[in-house]
């Protein structure tokens, strides 16, 4: 019975995403969507993806990370370098697929490496160190100059001249100017497919022996150890998968714009905290909630641009209302009552 309920819950989650996709597509086809709003669809989806990734880390593994945009940054840059270098040699479809493979692999690798020191810490300390790593990643990428010529790759941490490139060479990462001229391969359909795949991975993981072990570590690591659960292994596993999914969001990010720079606006701790807000307001450990919260909270301030002065006021009121709706005891009771009635009527 529980398994059936879980399956139904998962199907509802996929259903919500697909419904959102269809509504947006219909609006687009019938010309009811402004070009401004059209441009927000892909970002909305990759923020939903990274919110799912962060919820795996915060809600399922129970470790507060506020540097997840760093992994998104790695996914964005590694895949953009690949796409820029191969855009004249490989056709779009396989190239974009390989860009995903590379972005996810690099983000996972860094998730693993950073996880080794970070996951030894607990609570506030872990949060602070993840924040630091997120900033380090962003700042290091801002300082890298990378180019390729007939002699192979060149790398420098100072300036373009130091690369010592042949005349036929191509500068790929130009320090703080980032990468320009990445092919814009991403579109709303692909973004939604990636979101569905991320949901599939996370929701299925939660219903497997590894997922149960991860949640056991979250609930009580001492008891988990004495039940024979290798705590370190499962922490690393969840953190790495979470980083990998954040990397996938990064691939969408970099292939949705032509000029990619590692700015604080997108990859700094402010951005990481904004995603944490999506996760907290959507419900910690509630994957579906993350998707809904990301969609609403990303679109809302953009939709309210017309109101200008009151924009942030309304945004903060919505944050408070969502918080109350999710956690206030009276609201929780009311929700349970409604859900109960609904189930009764269907039974």
């Amino acid at each position: 019975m529980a398994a059936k309920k879980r399956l139904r819950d998962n199907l509802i989650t996929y259903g919500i995403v697909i419904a959102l996709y269809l509504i947006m597509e219909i609006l687009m086809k019938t010309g009811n969507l402004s070009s401004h709003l059209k441009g927000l669809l892909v970002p909305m989806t990759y923020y939903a993806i990274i919110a799912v990734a962060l919820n795996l880390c915060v809600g399922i593994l129970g470790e507060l990370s506020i540097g997840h945009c760093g992994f998104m940054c790695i996914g964005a840059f590694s895949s953009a370098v690949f796409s820029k270098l191969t855009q004249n040699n490989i056709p779009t479809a396989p190239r974009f697929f390989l860009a995903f493979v590379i972005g996810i692999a690099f983000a996972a690798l860094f998730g693993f490496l950073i996880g080794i020191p970070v996951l030894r810490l607990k609570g506030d300390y872990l949060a602070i160190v993840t924040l630091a790593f997120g900033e380090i990643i962003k700042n290091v990428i801002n300082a890298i100059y990378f180019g390729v010529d007939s002699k192979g790759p060149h790398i420098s941490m100072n300036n373009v001249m130091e690369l010592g490139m042949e005349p036929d060479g191509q500068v790929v990462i130009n320090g703080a100017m980032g990468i320009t001229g990445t092919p814009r391969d991403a579109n709303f359909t692909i973004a939604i497919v990636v979101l569905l795949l991320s949901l599939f991975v996370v929701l299925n993981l939660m219903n497997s022996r590894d997922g149960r072990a991860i949640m056991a570590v979250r609930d009580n690591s001492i008891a988990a150890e004495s039940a024979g659960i290798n705590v370190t292994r499962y922490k690393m596993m969840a953190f790495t998968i979470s980083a990998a999914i954040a990397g996938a969001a990064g691939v969408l990010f970099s292939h949705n714009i032509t000029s990619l720079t590692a700015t604080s606006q997108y990859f700094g701790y402010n951005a990481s905290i904004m995603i944490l807000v999506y996760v907290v307001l959507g419900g910690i450990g509630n994957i579906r909630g993350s998707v809904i919260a990301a969609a609403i909270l990303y679109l809302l301030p953009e939709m309210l641009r017309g109101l200008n002065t009151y924009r942030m006021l309304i945004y903060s009121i919505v944050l408070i209302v969502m918080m109350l709706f999710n956690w206030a005891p009276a609201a929780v009771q009311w929700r349970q009552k409604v859900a109960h009635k609904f189930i009764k009527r269907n039974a």
Partner: protein
Amino acid sequence: MKLLQVNNLSIAFGGLRAVDDFSLEIEKGELYGLIGPNGAGKTTVFNLLTGVYKPNEGIIRLDGEDITRKNTIEINHSGIARTFQNIRLFHQMSVIDNVKVGLTERFKYSGIEGVLHVGRYRKMEKEMDEEAMKLLKVFDLDSERDTLASNLPYGKQRKLEIARAMATSPKLLLLDEPAAGMNPNETAELMDTIALVRKEFGMTILLIEHDMKLVSGICEKLTVLNFGRVLKQGETKEVLSDPEVIKAYLGE
């Protein structure tokens, strides 16, 4: 045959010798009690047996295998499972999932199969469900399978903790004050549960307890600890009528 053999175990925290020259032998199938005043080092002995602390001196052998230097996880795989003085459940998980965590190492499939729900996943999950339900039936928790562990009443939480420990199919079960905080009815029920575990699984049990009714009711042998040292060891009746034990622990 000796299942657990502990020889001259000692550990010091700074200048305090929390456990000093502790020896213990438990036969297969025995129900053994470890008693003593607060701070005598009983829980420290459990933490030494399960690898939470490493002893300064001494040897621990389980079924002939030296487990002294192993860590908690390896010791669990060698066959010691435990419960805790303050209940440690996976409180945000359902009752059956708590038990299935205990089954993790016995029913294996790869992470890929788990994420894609293919291959051995369905078969193994089904077998895990069946095995977990079998255990829950023994502990009379099968009607609560989908309840969150934190929503269980206290007595049932204790039972679930024992069920989870049993799920790792141990050779030796350590119970740390299983009756702590229970009313007399719950304690009586717990005694039945422990008796049932012995009958159903032929389990060897070492338990720490302050409830003398429970200790004298079910333990076959006792060790009394005082200030980290063994005060008296032997058959329950003998030990409990020993004048030194009465003076140090039971009260005259």
